[in-house]
Protein backbone atom coordinates (compact mmCIF):
# COMPACT_ATOMS: atom_id res chain seq x y z
CA UNK A 1 0.00 0.00 0.00
CA UNK A 2 1.61 3.25 -1.11
CA UNK A 3 -0.28 5.43 1.34
CA UNK A 4 2.08 4.23 4.07
CA UNK A 5 4.80 6.36 2.51
CA UNK A 6 2.98 9.59 3.42
CA UNK A 7 4.20 10.69 6.82
CA UNK A 8 1.57 11.58 9.40
CA UNK A 9 2.32 15.33 9.35
CA UNK A 10 1.80 15.50 5.61
CA UNK A 11 -1.37 13.49 5.99
CA UNK A 12 -2.87 15.92 8.51
CA UNK A 13 -1.94 18.80 6.24
CA UNK A 14 -3.56 17.09 3.28
CA UNK A 15 -6.78 16.45 5.22
CA UNK A 16 -6.87 20.08 6.31
CA UNK A 17 -6.38 21.18 2.73
CA UNK A 18 -9.19 18.91 1.53
CA UNK A 19 -11.52 20.24 4.23
CA UNK A 20 -10.63 23.82 3.26
CA UNK A 21 -11.41 23.03 -0.37
CA UNK A 22 -14.72 21.55 0.65
CA UNK A 23 -15.53 24.60 2.77
CA UNK A 24 -14.85 26.93 -0.17
CA UNK A 25 -17.24 24.87 -2.30
CA UNK A 26 -19.82 24.97 0.47
CA UNK A 27 -19.65 28.77 0.80
CA UNK A 28 -19.73 29.22 -2.98
CA UNK A 29 -22.86 27.09 -3.36
CA UNK A 30 -24.65 28.83 -0.49
CA UNK A 31 -23.85 32.27 -1.88
CA UNK A 32 -24.87 31.37 -5.41
CA UNK A 33 -28.15 29.83 -4.28
CA UNK A 34 -28.92 32.77 -2.05
CA UNK A 35 -28.26 35.12 -4.97
CA UNK A 36 -30.42 32.94 -7.14
CA UNK A 37 -33.24 33.04 -4.59
CA UNK A 38 -32.97 36.81 -4.52
CA UNK A 39 -33.24 37.04 -8.30
CA UNK A 40 -36.21 34.69 -8.27
CA UNK A 41 -38.15 36.81 -5.77
CA UNK A 42 -37.64 39.83 -8.02
CA UNK A 43 -38.35 37.94 -11.24
CA UNK A 44 -41.68 36.66 -9.95
CA UNK A 45 -44.67 38.49 -11.35
CA UNK A 46 -45.92 41.13 -8.94
CA UNK A 47 -44.51 43.16 -6.09
CA UNK A 48 -41.56 41.51 -4.22
CA UNK A 49 -43.20 42.56 -0.94
CA UNK A 50 -46.24 40.50 -1.89
CA UNK A 51 -44.00 37.56 -2.77
CA UNK A 52 -42.29 37.76 0.62
CA UNK A 53 -45.66 38.01 2.37
CA UNK A 54 -46.83 34.96 0.42
CA UNK A 55 -49.90 36.78 -0.80
CA UNK A 56 -51.33 37.78 -4.09
CA UNK A 57 -54.30 39.90 -4.99
CA UNK A 58 -56.04 41.14 -1.86
CA UNK A 59 -53.35 41.96 0.65
CA UNK A 60 -52.71 43.87 3.79
CA UNK A 61 -51.26 47.26 2.76
CA UNK A 62 -49.83 47.91 6.20
CA UNK A 63 -47.89 44.65 6.20
CA UNK A 64 -46.58 45.31 2.70
CA UNK A 65 -45.36 48.78 3.65
CA UNK A 66 -43.70 47.34 6.73
CA UNK A 67 -42.01 44.64 4.62
CA UNK A 68 -40.78 47.19 2.09
CA UNK A 69 -39.15 49.15 4.89
CA UNK A 70 -37.78 46.07 6.67
CA UNK A 71 -36.24 44.49 3.59
CA UNK A 72 -35.23 47.85 2.10
CA UNK A 73 -37.11 47.07 -1.10
CA UNK A 74 -36.83 50.69 -2.25
CA UNK A 75 -33.02 50.56 -2.16
CA UNK A 76 -30.89 49.65 -5.23
CA UNK A 77 -30.62 45.92 -6.03
CA UNK A 78 -26.93 45.45 -5.06
CA UNK A 79 -27.60 46.80 -1.56
CA UNK A 80 -30.70 44.66 -1.21
CA UNK A 81 -28.73 41.62 -2.31
CA UNK A 82 -25.91 42.37 0.14
CA UNK A 83 -28.43 42.69 2.96
CA UNK A 84 -30.07 39.44 1.97
CA UNK A 85 -26.76 37.57 1.86
CA UNK A 86 -25.87 39.01 5.27
CA UNK A 87 -29.13 37.63 6.67
CA UNK A 88 -28.54 34.21 5.13
CA UNK A 89 -25.01 34.00 6.56
CA UNK A 90 -26.40 34.72 10.04
CA UNK A 91 -28.91 31.87 9.50
CA UNK A 92 -31.82 34.28 9.22
CA UNK A 93 -33.87 32.62 6.49
CA UNK A 94 -36.79 35.00 6.72
CA UNK A 95 -40.27 34.82 8.17
CA UNK A 96 -43.26 32.85 6.99
CA UNK A 97 -46.21 35.23 7.23
CA UNK A 98 -48.52 32.37 6.33
CA UNK A 99 -47.48 30.26 9.31
CA UNK A 100 -46.47 33.16 11.55
CA UNK A 101 -43.11 31.57 12.34
CA UNK A 102 -39.51 32.00 11.29
CA UNK A 103 -38.49 29.87 8.33
CA UNK A 104 -35.45 28.62 10.23
CA UNK A 105 -37.60 27.18 13.02
CA UNK A 106 -39.97 25.55 10.51
CA UNK A 107 -37.02 23.94 8.74
CA UNK A 108 -35.31 22.81 11.94
CA UNK A 109 -38.51 21.08 13.01
CA UNK A 110 -38.74 19.15 9.72
CA UNK A 111 -35.05 18.49 9.18
CA UNK A 112 -34.68 15.27 11.26
CA UNK A 113 -37.36 13.41 9.28
CA UNK A 114 -35.76 14.32 5.95
CA UNK A 115 -32.27 13.45 7.15
CA UNK A 116 -33.55 10.09 8.41
CA UNK A 117 -35.27 9.34 5.10
CA UNK A 118 -32.47 10.44 2.75
CA UNK A 119 -29.70 8.88 4.86
CA UNK A 120 -31.59 5.57 5.08
CA UNK A 121 -32.33 5.50 1.36
CA UNK A 122 -28.77 6.50 0.46
CA UNK A 123 -27.22 3.85 2.71
CA UNK A 124 -29.72 1.23 1.59
CA UNK A 125 -29.04 1.88 -2.09
CA UNK A 126 -25.27 2.02 -1.68
CA UNK A 127 -24.85 -0.99 0.62
CA UNK A 128 -27.33 -3.30 -1.11
CA UNK A 129 -26.10 -2.16 -4.52
CA UNK A 130 -22.53 -3.05 -3.59
CA UNK A 131 -23.48 -6.40 -2.07
CA UNK A 132 -25.87 -7.48 -4.85
CA UNK A 133 -23.54 -6.23 -7.57
CA UNK A 134 -20.61 -8.14 -6.08
CA UNK A 135 -22.66 -11.32 -5.89
CA UNK A 136 -23.77 -10.85 -9.49
CA UNK A 137 -20.23 -10.07 -10.61
CA UNK A 138 -18.51 -12.91 -8.80
CA UNK A 139 -20.85 -15.51 -10.18
CA UNK A 140 -21.55 -13.77 -13.47
CA UNK A 141 -24.09 -15.84 -15.30
CA UNK A 142 -26.55 -15.28 -18.06
CA UNK A 143 -29.72 -15.21 -15.98
CA UNK A 144 -28.59 -12.81 -13.27
CA UNK A 145 -27.34 -10.42 -15.95
CA UNK A 146 -30.63 -10.53 -17.86
CA UNK A 147 -32.71 -10.16 -14.70
CA UNK A 148 -30.64 -7.16 -13.57
CA UNK A 149 -30.93 -5.49 -16.96
CA UNK A 150 -34.71 -5.91 -17.08
CA UNK A 151 -35.28 -4.76 -13.50
CA UNK A 152 -33.07 -1.71 -13.89
CA UNK A 153 -34.64 -0.78 -17.25
CA UNK A 154 -38.08 -0.91 -15.62
CA UNK A 155 -36.96 1.08 -12.58
CA UNK A 156 -35.27 3.75 -14.75
CA UNK A 157 -38.64 4.30 -16.39
CA UNK A 158 -40.80 4.32 -13.25
CA UNK A 159 -41.78 7.66 -11.74
CA UNK A 160 -40.64 7.49 -8.12
CA UNK A 161 -43.96 8.76 -6.74
CA UNK A 162 -45.88 6.11 -8.67
CA UNK A 163 -43.58 3.36 -7.41
CA UNK A 164 -44.34 4.59 -3.89
CA UNK A 165 -48.08 4.48 -4.53
CA UNK A 166 -47.88 0.99 -6.01
CA UNK A 167 -45.93 -0.25 -2.98
CA UNK A 168 -48.66 1.25 -0.76
CA UNK A 169 -51.28 -0.52 -2.84
CA UNK A 170 -49.48 -3.85 -2.41
CA UNK A 171 -48.04 -3.75 1.11
CA UNK A 172 -50.58 -1.55 2.89
CA UNK A 173 -53.90 -1.86 1.10
CA UNK A 174 -53.72 -5.49 -0.10
CA UNK A 175 -51.41 -7.21 2.40
CA UNK A 176 -51.77 -4.78 5.31
CA UNK A 177 -48.18 -5.41 6.42
CA UNK A 178 -46.89 -1.86 6.60
CA UNK A 179 -48.36 1.55 7.40
CA UNK A 180 -49.33 3.50 4.27
CA UNK A 181 -48.32 6.95 5.41
CA UNK A 182 -47.09 9.09 8.28
CA UNK A 183 -44.06 9.07 10.51
CA UNK A 184 -45.29 7.48 13.70
CA UNK A 185 -48.62 6.06 14.93
CA UNK A 186 -50.54 8.88 16.59
CA UNK A 187 -52.48 8.58 19.82
CA UNK A 188 -50.83 5.41 21.11
CA UNK A 189 -48.65 5.64 24.24
CA UNK A 190 -45.27 4.08 23.51
CA UNK A 191 -41.89 3.57 25.16
CA UNK A 192 -38.85 5.04 23.38
CA UNK A 193 -37.94 1.64 21.98
CA UNK A 194 -41.46 0.97 20.71
CA UNK A 195 -41.52 4.44 19.19
CA UNK A 196 -38.28 3.80 17.33
CA UNK A 197 -39.64 0.51 16.05
CA UNK A 198 -42.83 2.23 14.95
CA UNK A 199 -40.92 4.94 13.08
CA UNK A 200 -38.84 2.18 11.50
CA UNK A 201 -41.97 0.45 10.22
CA UNK A 202 -43.21 3.75 8.76
CA UNK A 203 -39.80 4.33 7.20
CA UNK A 204 -39.62 1.09 5.19
CA UNK A 205 -41.90 1.95 2.26
CA UNK A 206 -40.68 5.53 1.66
CA UNK A 207 -37.03 4.55 1.97
CA UNK A 208 -37.40 1.56 -0.34
CA UNK A 209 -39.29 3.55 -2.99
CA UNK A 210 -36.70 6.33 -2.87
CA UNK A 211 -33.75 3.92 -2.97
CA UNK A 212 -35.07 1.51 -5.62
CA UNK A 213 -33.82 3.16 -8.79
CA UNK A 214 -30.40 3.95 -7.31
CA UNK A 215 -30.15 0.43 -5.98
CA UNK A 216 -30.64 -0.82 -9.55
CA UNK A 217 -28.04 1.60 -10.93
CA UNK A 218 -25.43 0.73 -8.30
CA UNK A 219 -25.99 -3.00 -8.61
CA UNK A 220 -25.44 -2.83 -12.35
CA UNK A 221 -22.38 -0.60 -12.01
CA UNK A 222 -20.91 -2.74 -9.23
CA UNK A 223 -21.36 -5.87 -11.27
CA UNK A 224 -19.40 -4.54 -14.25
CA UNK A 225 -16.83 -2.96 -11.97
CA UNK A 226 -16.25 -6.26 -10.17
CA UNK A 227 -15.85 -8.01 -13.52
CA UNK A 228 -13.29 -5.37 -14.60
CA UNK A 229 -11.24 -5.67 -11.43
CA UNK A 230 -11.33 -9.47 -11.39
CA UNK A 231 -9.34 -9.63 -14.60
CA UNK A 232 -6.52 -7.39 -13.39
CA UNK A 233 -3.06 -8.60 -12.58
CA UNK A 234 -3.02 -7.94 -8.86
CA UNK A 235 -5.92 -10.32 -8.42
CA UNK A 236 -3.97 -13.01 -10.23
CA UNK A 237 -1.08 -12.27 -7.86
CA UNK A 238 -3.35 -12.63 -4.88
CA UNK A 239 -4.62 -15.94 -6.21
CA UNK A 240 -1.07 -17.09 -6.90
CA UNK A 241 -0.11 -16.22 -3.31
CA UNK A 242 -2.76 -18.75 -2.30
CA UNK A 243 -5.15 -16.35 -0.62
CA UNK A 244 -8.63 -17.65 0.14
CA UNK A 245 -11.43 -16.73 -2.28
CA UNK A 246 -13.40 -14.81 0.40
CA UNK A 247 -10.38 -12.77 1.39
CA UNK A 248 -9.58 -11.90 -2.23
CA UNK A 249 -13.14 -10.74 -2.79
CA UNK A 250 -13.31 -8.59 0.33
CA UNK A 251 -9.79 -7.18 0.56
CA UNK A 252 -8.85 -6.87 -3.09
CA UNK A 253 -11.83 -6.92 -5.43
CA UNK A 254 -14.45 -5.14 -3.32
CA UNK A 255 -12.22 -2.30 -2.23
CA UNK A 256 -11.19 -1.41 -5.77
CA UNK A 257 -14.49 -2.11 -7.46
CA UNK A 258 -16.41 0.13 -5.05
CA UNK A 259 -14.65 3.31 -6.15
CA UNK A 260 -16.67 4.14 -9.29
CA UNK A 261 -19.93 3.41 -7.45
CA UNK A 262 -19.04 5.83 -4.68
CA UNK A 263 -18.24 8.50 -7.27
CA UNK A 264 -21.57 8.03 -9.04
CA UNK A 265 -23.42 8.00 -5.71
CA UNK A 266 -21.90 11.39 -4.91
CA UNK A 267 -22.97 12.78 -8.25
CA UNK A 268 -26.52 11.54 -7.77
CA UNK A 269 -26.98 12.95 -4.28
CA UNK A 270 -28.85 15.93 -5.74
CA UNK A 271 -31.32 13.72 -7.58
CA UNK A 272 -31.86 11.61 -4.45
CA UNK A 273 -32.67 14.65 -2.34
CA UNK A 274 -35.03 15.89 -5.08
CA UNK A 275 -36.74 12.51 -5.10
CA UNK A 276 -37.23 12.78 -1.35
CA UNK A 277 -39.53 15.75 -1.94
CA UNK A 278 -41.93 13.67 -4.02
CA UNK A 279 -41.69 10.64 -1.75
CA UNK A 280 -42.47 12.73 1.33
CA UNK A 281 -45.53 14.04 -0.48
CA UNK A 282 -46.71 10.51 -1.28
CA UNK A 283 -46.18 9.17 2.23
CA UNK A 284 -47.12 12.29 4.21
CA UNK A 285 -43.64 12.07 5.70
CA UNK A 286 -43.24 15.19 7.86
CA UNK A 287 -39.94 16.39 6.40
CA UNK A 288 -38.72 19.26 4.25
CA UNK A 289 -40.32 17.84 1.11
CA UNK A 290 -43.71 17.83 2.74
CA UNK A 291 -42.98 21.38 3.89
CA UNK A 292 -42.35 22.31 0.25
CA UNK A 293 -45.65 20.77 -0.79
CA UNK A 294 -47.61 22.68 1.87
CA UNK A 295 -45.72 25.88 1.06
CA UNK A 296 -46.57 25.41 -2.63
CA UNK A 297 -50.29 25.16 -1.89
CA UNK A 298 -50.10 28.42 0.04
CA UNK A 299 -47.52 30.06 -2.24
CA UNK A 300 -45.38 30.61 0.84
CA UNK A 301 -42.20 31.77 -0.94
CA UNK A 302 -39.91 32.45 2.04
CA UNK A 303 -40.34 28.80 3.06
CA UNK A 304 -39.72 27.53 -0.48
CA UNK A 305 -36.54 29.56 -0.83
CA UNK A 306 -35.28 28.54 2.61
CA UNK A 307 -35.89 24.85 1.97
CA UNK A 308 -34.11 25.06 -1.39
CA UNK A 309 -31.06 26.49 0.35
CA UNK A 310 -31.06 23.89 3.13
CA UNK A 311 -31.59 20.98 0.75
CA UNK A 312 -28.67 22.13 -1.36
CA UNK A 313 -26.56 22.11 1.79
CA UNK A 314 -27.69 18.53 2.45
CA UNK A 315 -26.48 17.60 -1.05
CA UNK A 316 -23.08 19.16 -0.39
CA UNK A 317 -22.90 17.25 2.89
CA UNK A 318 -23.63 14.01 1.04
CA UNK A 319 -20.87 14.94 -1.42
CA UNK A 320 -18.46 15.38 1.45
CA UNK A 321 -19.55 12.01 2.81
CA UNK A 322 -18.91 10.20 -0.49
CA UNK A 323 -15.58 12.04 -0.87
CA UNK A 324 -14.58 10.80 2.56
CA UNK A 325 -15.67 7.24 1.84
CA UNK A 326 -13.69 7.37 -1.39
CA UNK A 327 -10.56 8.46 0.42
CA UNK A 328 -10.92 5.84 3.11
CA UNK A 329 -11.34 2.93 0.72
CA UNK A 330 -9.05 4.01 -2.10
CA UNK A 331 -5.71 2.28 -1.57
CA UNK A 332 -3.81 4.47 -4.02
CA UNK A 333 -4.91 8.09 -4.12
CA UNK A 334 -3.45 10.48 -1.57
CA UNK A 335 -5.93 12.80 0.13
CA UNK A 336 -4.77 15.83 -1.80
CA UNK A 337 -4.99 14.36 -5.28
CA UNK A 338 -8.66 13.42 -5.11
CA UNK A 339 -10.16 16.88 -4.91
Amino acid sequence: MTSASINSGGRVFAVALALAGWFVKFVAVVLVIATFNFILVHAAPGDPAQVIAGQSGASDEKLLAQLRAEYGLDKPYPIQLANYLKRVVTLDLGYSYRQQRTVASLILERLPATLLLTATAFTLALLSGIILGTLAGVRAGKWSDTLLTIVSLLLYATPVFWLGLMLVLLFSVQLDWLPAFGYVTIGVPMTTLQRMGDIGMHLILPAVSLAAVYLAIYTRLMRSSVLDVTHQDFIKTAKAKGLKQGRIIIRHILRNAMLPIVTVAGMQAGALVGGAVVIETVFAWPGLGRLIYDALLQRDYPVLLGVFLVMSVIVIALNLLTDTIYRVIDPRVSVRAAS
Partner: protein
Amino acid sequence: MSTLKSFLRHPTGMIGLFVLLAVVILAVSAPWLFPDDPWDMVGAPFQPPLSEGLWLGSDMLGRDVAAGIAHGARISLIIGVISTLTSLIIGVTIGATAGYFGGKVDEVMMRITELFQTIPGFILAILLVATLGPKISNVIFAIGIVSWPPLARLTRAEFMRLRGREFVQAAVCQGQRPLTVVLRRILPNAISPIIVTGSLAVASAILIESALSFMGLGDPNLMSWGFMIGAARTVIRQAWWMSVFPGLAILLTVLAINLVGEGLNDTLNPRISRKR
Protein backbone atom coordinates in the same frame (compact mmCIF):
# COMPACT_ATOMS: atom_id res chain seq x y z
CA MET B 1 -28.65 4.22 -44.67
CA SER B 2 -26.59 1.46 -43.08
CA THR B 3 -27.32 3.07 -39.72
CA LEU B 4 -31.05 2.85 -40.38
CA LYS B 5 -30.68 -0.78 -41.45
CA SER B 6 -28.73 -1.73 -38.36
CA PHE B 7 -31.29 0.03 -36.14
CA LEU B 8 -34.07 -1.93 -37.86
CA ARG B 9 -32.21 -5.08 -36.84
CA HIS B 10 -31.89 -3.96 -33.21
CA PRO B 11 -34.60 -5.98 -31.39
CA THR B 12 -35.17 -3.95 -28.22
CA GLY B 13 -34.73 -0.69 -30.11
CA MET B 14 -37.49 -1.72 -32.50
CA ILE B 15 -39.80 -2.76 -29.65
CA GLY B 16 -39.24 0.67 -28.13
CA LEU B 17 -39.90 2.34 -31.45
CA PHE B 18 -43.21 0.49 -31.92
CA VAL B 19 -44.43 1.37 -28.41
CA LEU B 20 -43.34 4.97 -28.89
CA LEU B 21 -45.14 5.15 -32.24
CA ALA B 22 -48.28 3.81 -30.57
CA VAL B 23 -48.06 6.56 -27.93
CA VAL B 24 -47.52 9.19 -30.63
CA ILE B 25 -50.56 7.90 -32.58
CA LEU B 26 -52.62 7.95 -29.38
CA ALA B 27 -51.52 11.52 -28.71
CA VAL B 28 -52.24 12.70 -32.23
CA SER B 29 -55.63 11.02 -32.47
CA ALA B 30 -56.81 11.97 -28.95
CA PRO B 31 -59.20 14.70 -30.21
CA TRP B 32 -60.91 12.15 -32.48
CA LEU B 33 -60.84 9.18 -30.12
CA PHE B 34 -62.09 11.25 -27.21
CA PRO B 35 -63.72 14.36 -28.68
CA ASP B 36 -65.04 15.49 -25.30
CA ASP B 37 -62.95 17.70 -23.06
CA PRO B 38 -61.00 15.34 -20.74
CA TRP B 39 -62.03 17.59 -17.83
CA ASP B 40 -65.75 16.99 -18.48
CA MET B 41 -67.84 14.62 -16.43
CA VAL B 42 -68.92 11.78 -18.71
CA GLY B 43 -70.27 9.21 -16.29
CA ALA B 44 -70.84 8.34 -12.67
CA PRO B 45 -67.80 8.86 -10.42
CA PHE B 46 -65.73 5.89 -9.14
CA GLN B 47 -66.69 3.55 -12.00
CA PRO B 48 -64.22 0.63 -12.17
CA PRO B 49 -62.52 -0.29 -15.47
CA LEU B 50 -64.64 -2.02 -18.16
CA SER B 51 -67.75 -0.19 -17.02
CA GLU B 52 -70.14 0.85 -19.75
CA GLY B 53 -68.37 3.21 -22.13
CA LEU B 54 -65.46 3.62 -19.72
CA TRP B 55 -62.64 1.17 -20.56
CA LEU B 56 -60.35 2.35 -17.82
CA GLY B 57 -63.07 3.55 -15.45
CA SER B 58 -63.87 7.04 -14.24
CA ASP B 59 -62.28 9.19 -11.57
CA MET B 60 -63.80 10.81 -8.48
CA LEU B 61 -65.42 13.53 -10.57
CA GLY B 62 -66.73 11.16 -13.23
CA ARG B 63 -64.04 12.03 -15.76
CA ASP B 64 -62.96 9.34 -18.22
CA VAL B 65 -59.55 7.95 -17.22
CA ALA B 66 -58.88 6.70 -20.78
CA ALA B 67 -59.60 10.15 -22.22
CA GLY B 68 -57.25 11.68 -19.66
CA ILE B 69 -54.49 9.28 -20.67
CA ALA B 70 -54.94 9.99 -24.39
CA HIS B 71 -54.94 13.76 -23.91
CA GLY B 72 -52.14 13.52 -21.34
CA ALA B 73 -49.96 11.78 -23.92
CA ARG B 74 -49.92 15.00 -25.96
CA ILE B 75 -48.69 17.06 -23.03
CA SER B 76 -46.04 14.55 -21.96
CA LEU B 77 -44.58 14.22 -25.46
CA ILE B 78 -44.68 17.95 -26.23
CA ILE B 79 -43.05 18.92 -22.95
CA GLY B 80 -40.53 16.07 -23.21
CA VAL B 81 -39.39 17.10 -26.68
CA ILE B 82 -39.41 20.89 -26.35
CA SER B 83 -37.75 20.99 -22.93
CA THR B 84 -35.06 18.65 -24.23
CA LEU B 85 -34.49 20.99 -27.17
CA THR B 86 -34.17 23.83 -24.65
CA SER B 87 -31.60 21.94 -22.60
CA LEU B 88 -29.79 20.93 -25.81
CA ILE B 89 -29.44 24.58 -26.80
CA ILE B 90 -28.09 25.54 -23.37
CA GLY B 91 -25.93 22.44 -22.88
CA VAL B 92 -24.41 22.29 -26.36
CA THR B 93 -23.65 26.02 -26.33
CA ILE B 94 -21.90 25.85 -22.97
CA GLY B 95 -20.14 22.56 -23.68
CA ALA B 96 -19.00 23.68 -27.15
CA THR B 97 -17.65 27.00 -25.84
CA ALA B 98 -15.80 25.28 -23.00
CA GLY B 99 -14.39 22.52 -25.20
CA TYR B 100 -13.43 24.76 -28.09
CA PHE B 101 -11.71 27.58 -26.22
CA GLY B 102 -10.39 25.60 -23.24
CA GLY B 103 -8.30 27.32 -20.56
CA LYS B 104 -9.99 29.95 -18.42
CA VAL B 105 -13.25 29.85 -20.38
CA ASP B 106 -13.44 26.10 -19.87
CA GLU B 107 -12.73 26.49 -16.16
CA VAL B 108 -15.54 29.02 -15.66
CA MET B 109 -18.03 27.05 -17.75
CA MET B 110 -17.27 23.82 -15.92
CA ARG B 111 -17.63 25.46 -12.51
CA ILE B 112 -21.10 26.65 -13.52
CA THR B 113 -21.96 23.17 -14.78
CA GLU B 114 -20.70 21.60 -11.56
CA LEU B 115 -22.80 24.00 -9.52
CA PHE B 116 -25.94 23.09 -11.45
CA GLN B 117 -25.14 19.42 -10.91
CA THR B 118 -24.77 19.94 -7.18
CA ILE B 119 -28.03 21.75 -6.48
CA PRO B 120 -31.09 19.49 -6.30
CA GLY B 121 -32.49 20.06 -9.77
CA PHE B 122 -36.03 18.98 -9.04
CA ILE B 123 -36.40 21.49 -6.21
CA LEU B 124 -35.02 24.21 -8.47
CA ALA B 125 -37.64 23.25 -11.07
CA ILE B 126 -40.37 23.45 -8.40
CA LEU B 127 -39.17 26.91 -7.37
CA LEU B 128 -39.03 28.16 -10.95
CA VAL B 129 -42.52 26.99 -11.83
CA ALA B 130 -43.94 28.18 -8.51
CA THR B 131 -42.56 31.70 -8.87
CA LEU B 132 -43.01 32.15 -12.61
CA GLY B 133 -46.47 30.57 -12.64
CA PRO B 134 -47.76 27.13 -13.65
CA LYS B 135 -47.87 27.65 -17.41
CA ILE B 136 -46.67 25.07 -19.92
CA SER B 137 -43.96 27.44 -21.19
CA ASN B 138 -42.59 27.88 -17.66
CA VAL B 139 -42.65 24.14 -17.06
CA ILE B 140 -40.64 23.63 -20.25
CA PHE B 141 -38.21 26.37 -19.28
CA ALA B 142 -37.74 24.92 -15.78
CA ILE B 143 -37.06 21.40 -17.06
CA GLY B 144 -34.63 22.79 -19.64
CA ILE B 145 -32.75 24.73 -16.95
CA VAL B 146 -32.23 21.68 -14.74
CA SER B 147 -31.45 19.13 -17.48
CA TRP B 148 -28.56 20.61 -19.44
CA PRO B 149 -25.42 19.76 -17.37
CA PRO B 150 -24.89 16.18 -18.67
CA LEU B 151 -25.31 17.47 -22.25
CA ALA B 152 -22.76 20.22 -21.63
CA ARG B 153 -20.23 17.75 -20.20
CA LEU B 154 -20.69 15.38 -23.11
CA THR B 155 -20.40 18.13 -25.74
CA ARG B 156 -17.29 19.51 -24.01
CA ALA B 157 -15.60 16.10 -24.03
CA GLU B 158 -16.41 15.57 -27.71
CA PHE B 159 -15.18 19.03 -28.65
CA MET B 160 -11.94 18.58 -26.72
CA ARG B 161 -11.39 15.28 -28.51
CA LEU B 162 -12.03 16.79 -31.95
CA ARG B 163 -10.35 20.15 -31.34
CA GLY B 164 -6.84 18.85 -32.00
CA ARG B 165 -7.69 16.77 -35.08
CA GLU B 166 -6.10 17.70 -38.41
CA PHE B 167 -9.28 18.67 -40.25
CA VAL B 168 -10.19 21.12 -37.48
CA GLN B 169 -6.66 22.54 -37.37
CA ALA B 170 -6.76 22.89 -41.17
CA ALA B 171 -10.00 24.83 -40.98
CA VAL B 172 -8.57 27.13 -38.31
CA CYS B 173 -5.41 27.69 -40.36
CA GLN B 174 -7.51 28.59 -43.39
CA GLY B 175 -8.82 31.46 -41.31
CA GLN B 176 -12.35 30.20 -40.88
CA ARG B 177 -14.19 31.98 -38.10
CA PRO B 178 -14.59 30.10 -34.78
CA LEU B 179 -18.36 29.92 -35.23
CA THR B 180 -17.93 28.31 -38.66
CA VAL B 181 -15.39 25.83 -37.34
CA VAL B 182 -17.65 24.93 -34.43
CA LEU B 183 -20.88 24.61 -36.39
CA ARG B 184 -19.63 23.19 -39.69
CA ARG B 185 -16.51 21.22 -38.76
CA ILE B 186 -16.74 19.98 -35.18
CA LEU B 187 -20.45 19.74 -34.38
CA PRO B 188 -21.37 17.41 -37.28
CA ASN B 189 -18.70 14.99 -36.04
CA ALA B 190 -19.87 15.18 -32.45
CA ILE B 191 -23.56 14.90 -33.20
CA SER B 192 -24.22 11.18 -32.73
CA PRO B 193 -23.43 10.91 -29.00
CA ILE B 194 -25.37 14.15 -28.50
CA ILE B 195 -28.39 12.64 -30.27
CA VAL B 196 -28.21 9.54 -28.08
CA THR B 197 -27.96 11.49 -24.82
CA GLY B 198 -30.63 13.90 -26.05
CA SER B 199 -33.06 11.06 -26.72
CA LEU B 200 -32.50 9.70 -23.22
CA ALA B 201 -33.02 13.25 -21.90
CA VAL B 202 -36.53 13.26 -23.40
CA ALA B 203 -37.35 10.32 -21.14
CA SER B 204 -36.09 12.03 -18.01
CA ALA B 205 -37.87 15.26 -19.00
CA ILE B 206 -41.14 13.34 -19.12
CA LEU B 207 -40.41 11.95 -15.66
CA ILE B 208 -39.69 15.44 -14.28
CA GLU B 209 -42.85 16.81 -15.88
CA SER B 210 -44.94 14.04 -14.34
CA ALA B 211 -43.43 14.71 -10.91
CA LEU B 212 -44.08 18.45 -11.25
CA SER B 213 -47.70 17.99 -12.19
CA PHE B 214 -48.04 15.33 -9.47
CA MET B 215 -47.01 18.06 -7.02
CA GLY B 216 -49.76 20.26 -8.47
CA LEU B 217 -47.48 22.43 -10.61
CA GLY B 218 -48.73 21.43 -14.03
CA ASP B 219 -50.61 23.79 -16.30
CA PRO B 220 -54.11 23.80 -14.75
CA ASN B 221 -55.75 23.85 -18.19
CA LEU B 222 -53.96 20.79 -19.54
CA MET B 223 -54.69 17.21 -18.55
CA SER B 224 -51.50 15.36 -17.70
CA TRP B 225 -50.56 11.93 -16.38
CA GLY B 226 -48.80 13.27 -13.30
CA PHE B 227 -51.82 15.37 -12.37
CA MET B 228 -54.14 12.35 -12.69
CA ILE B 229 -51.97 10.33 -10.28
CA GLY B 230 -51.67 13.25 -7.88
CA ALA B 231 -55.42 13.76 -7.83
CA ALA B 232 -56.12 10.05 -7.34
CA ARG B 233 -53.51 9.60 -4.60
CA THR B 234 -55.92 10.19 -1.73
CA VAL B 235 -58.50 7.66 -2.97
CA ILE B 236 -56.06 4.86 -3.76
CA ARG B 237 -57.74 2.56 -1.22
CA GLN B 238 -61.09 2.75 -3.02
CA ALA B 239 -59.96 3.25 -6.63
CA TRP B 240 -56.64 1.75 -7.70
CA TRP B 241 -57.30 2.24 -11.43
CA MET B 242 -57.16 6.02 -11.25
CA SER B 243 -53.46 5.95 -10.34
CA VAL B 244 -52.38 2.64 -11.86
CA PHE B 245 -53.22 3.38 -15.51
CA PRO B 246 -51.66 6.86 -15.86
CA GLY B 247 -48.55 5.50 -14.12
CA LEU B 248 -48.37 2.61 -16.57
CA ALA B 249 -48.66 5.14 -19.40
CA ILE B 250 -45.64 7.06 -18.05
CA LEU B 251 -43.69 3.84 -17.49
CA LEU B 252 -44.36 2.53 -21.01
CA THR B 253 -43.56 5.82 -22.72
CA VAL B 254 -40.34 6.42 -20.79
CA LEU B 255 -39.27 2.80 -21.21
CA ALA B 256 -39.92 3.00 -24.96
CA ILE B 257 -37.85 6.17 -25.30
CA ASN B 258 -35.01 4.64 -23.29
CA LEU B 259 -35.05 1.53 -25.48
CA VAL B 260 -34.96 3.66 -28.63
CA GLY B 261 -32.10 5.68 -27.11
CA GLU B 262 -30.09 2.57 -26.31
CA GLY B 263 -30.79 1.21 -29.77
CA LEU B 264 -29.54 4.47 -31.28
CA ASN B 265 -26.49 4.23 -29.06
CA ASP B 266 -25.68 0.75 -30.28
CA THR B 267 -26.10 1.71 -33.93
CA LEU B 268 -24.56 5.20 -33.90
CA ASN B 269 -21.66 4.52 -31.54
CA PRO B 270 -20.93 0.83 -32.09
CA ARG B 271 -17.46 1.12 -30.56
CA ILE B 272 -18.45 2.51 -27.18
CA SER B 273 -21.83 0.83 -26.91
CA ARG B 274 -22.60 -1.61 -24.09
CA LYS B 275 -20.28 0.32 -21.83
CA ARG B 276 -22.82 2.43 -20.07
